[in-house]
């Protein structure tokens, strides 16, 4: 991987990795027996391993060819491998915690494996580990191809990719050790948060610098989505994680936001994490990989611009729908509810735009499981944004909130939309990056597709049933005016659905493992394609009406 770096770039890489190792040492010394000390050791090891890898080929030959004549794909390849590794880890943790709900003995009576500690390893593992790495990898790919320019840095893409993964490792190992800020999707503590700020600002500057180098006059819409994703996640992350550590030698910190403001900031963050991490970036994937795979231009470019600004501006205000019937002022709740309903318009515009792009190429959707991944993702995107708008309406929320319905909704989005579009994009990207004719096995892509669909449907239907039963049981009164069911009664009623949910998740996990195998075999075994022509469908681009 270092063959592409000049000796001064290798020096910079070594200085960076050495700096990280040094910071780790300081953390270990300051933290002593606190968890911060443990994390210091982890940072030291991480920095040390990277330093060692840089040194191992430090005196290798300099890159011979003109680097500006080719795209920089090495960090993308590593990013894909990391994304798939995190997918298997994160989804396995998901199946484990799901199984714990049905069979609590699976916590094995240890502190680190209790539900409360394992659950964030699942959410962070799939959202940041799988989703984040997939976003970094695909954004590096899309920005280069659509700008017709090489990434504006040699070391910085590695810094972003590896630095982000160091954050994930710190976050997830922290949960197992009992470290948490108790903020949904922002559980990692202050030192990990500070590190992520540095990494993320580098990511943004790298992206902007690459766009600035572009040879295409117009910035393709996928890049707008990726830029919104990077910029807004930076803002959200900084504001929500403003906190004061109890001391420099201690992992614990306290947020600067008091009471209900803290709740509002948290859900402004939390919902926009869904909007900009789990939606905007993945719409960037959709707007690039779907037209490329279908070999058809996007149905309406204008519509994609309108829905971009709609999504960007409406989502910002929707977060308070997480706090219906709380101490949050009523008008703020109403504001969130209104914007959530309005969001349906740009969301469906995007989903419709994707499906209309495929209109006229349905035979390809039928024959090509990769394209079908993306088609199904657009359908699930449409369904879950409709469901989300619906659930944000206050009276509906009174039934759905705190129940499994919410969990079902999240997974309709996360499995059906985010994971499916990612797999579709990766199945398009892997053969193209490694210059193979196609994936190792089209049948295995097909098997993965059906496992993913079956798993998602089983999961979502189980949680719909479970959530609505739960919600109804909690609000049923007897004639005397007391609650008809105890909490335990509702828990017993959940039991079959918890088993079904764990099974659905297991199917999804098996699909991801098969995907890993298929990608591995594609990289290892498939012959080099003479030309890239054989991979993509051969029909010339047709222009749908506009």
């Amino acid at each position, binding site marked *: 991987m270092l063959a592409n770096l000049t000796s001064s770039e290798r020096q910079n890489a070594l200085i960076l990795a050495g700096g990280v190792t040094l910071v780790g040492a300081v953390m270990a010394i300051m933290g002593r027996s606190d968890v911060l000390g443990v994390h210091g050791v982890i940072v030291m090891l991480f920095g040390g391993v990277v330093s060692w890898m840089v040194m191992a080929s430090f005196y290798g030959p300099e890159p011979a060819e003109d680097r*500006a*004549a*080719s*795209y920089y794909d090495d960090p993308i390849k590593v990013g894909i491998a990391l994304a798939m590794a995190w997918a298997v880890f994160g989804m396995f943790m998901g199946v484990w915690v799901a199984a714990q709900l049905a069979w609590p003995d699976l916590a094995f009576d240890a502190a680190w494996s209790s539900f409360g500690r394992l659950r964030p390893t699942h959410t962070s593992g799939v959202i940041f580990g799988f989703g984040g790495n997939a976003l970094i990898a695909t954004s590096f790919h899309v920005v*280069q*191809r*659509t700008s*017709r*320019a*090489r990434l504006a840095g040699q070391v910085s893409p590695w810094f972003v990719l590896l630095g982000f993964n160091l954050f994930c490792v710190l976050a997830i190992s922290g949960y197992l050790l009992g470290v948490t800020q108790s903020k949904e999707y922002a559980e990692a503590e202050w030192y990990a948060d500070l590190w992520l700020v540095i990494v993320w600002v580098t990511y943004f500057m790298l992206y902007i610098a690459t766009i600035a180098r572009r*040879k*295409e*006059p*117009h910035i*393709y*819409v996928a890049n707008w989505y990726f830029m919104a994703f990077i910029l807004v996640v930076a803002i959200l992350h900084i504001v929500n994680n403003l906190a004061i550590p109890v001391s420099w030698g201690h992992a614990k910190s306290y947020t600067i936001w008091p009471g209900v403001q803290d709740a509002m900031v948290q859900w402004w963050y939390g919902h926009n994490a869904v909007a900009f991490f789990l939606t905007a970036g993945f719409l960037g994937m959709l707007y*690039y990989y779907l*037209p*490329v795979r279908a*070999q*058809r*231009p*996007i149905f309406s*470019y*204008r519509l994609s*611009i*309108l829905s971009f*600004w709609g999504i960007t*501006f409406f989502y910002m205000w929707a977060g308070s729908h997480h706090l219906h019937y709380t101490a949050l002022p009523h*008008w703020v709740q109403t504001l969130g509810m209104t914007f959530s309903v309005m969001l349906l318009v740009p969301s469906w515009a995007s989903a419709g735009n994707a499906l209309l792009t495929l209109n006229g190429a349905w035979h390809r959707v039928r024959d090509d499981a990769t394209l079908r991944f993306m088609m199904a993702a657009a359908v699930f995107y449409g369904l879950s944004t409709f469901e989300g708008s619906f659930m944000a309406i206050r009276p509906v929320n009174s039934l759905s909130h705190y129940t499994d319905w919410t969990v079902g909704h999240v997974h309709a989005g996360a499995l059906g939309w985010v994971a499916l579009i990612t797999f579709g994009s990766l199945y398009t990207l892997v053969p*193209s990056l490694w210059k193979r004719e196609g994936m190792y096995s089209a049948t295995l892509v097909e098997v993965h597709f059906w496992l993913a669909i079956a798993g998602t449907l089983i999961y979502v239907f189980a949680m719909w049933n479970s959530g609505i039963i739960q919600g109804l049981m909690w609000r049923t009164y007897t004639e005397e005016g007391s609650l008809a069911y105890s909490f335990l009664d509702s828990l017993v009623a959940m039991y079959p659905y918890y088993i079904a949910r764990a099974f659905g998740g297991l199917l999804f996990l098996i699909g991801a493992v098969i995907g890993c195998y298929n990608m591995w075999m594609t990289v290892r075994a498939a012959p080099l394609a003479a030309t*890239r*022509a054989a991979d993509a469908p051969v029909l010339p*681009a047709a*222009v749908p009406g506009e």
Partner: protein
Amino acid sequence: MDFSYETLVAFSKSWGLFYMMGFFLCVCVYAFWPRNRKRFDRAKHSILERDDTPWQK
């Protein structure tokens, strides 16, 4: 600098609304401006081109 609740609500209900509508109009004008049509058409077709190397000027 002490704002009352009523002041803030009045501000957001008027200017908050106007800036959103104004922004919406700007986006519409940009998207539908006739001269941009060629640029958008080019953008949506150019990602389908096959060459996989950066352009050198």
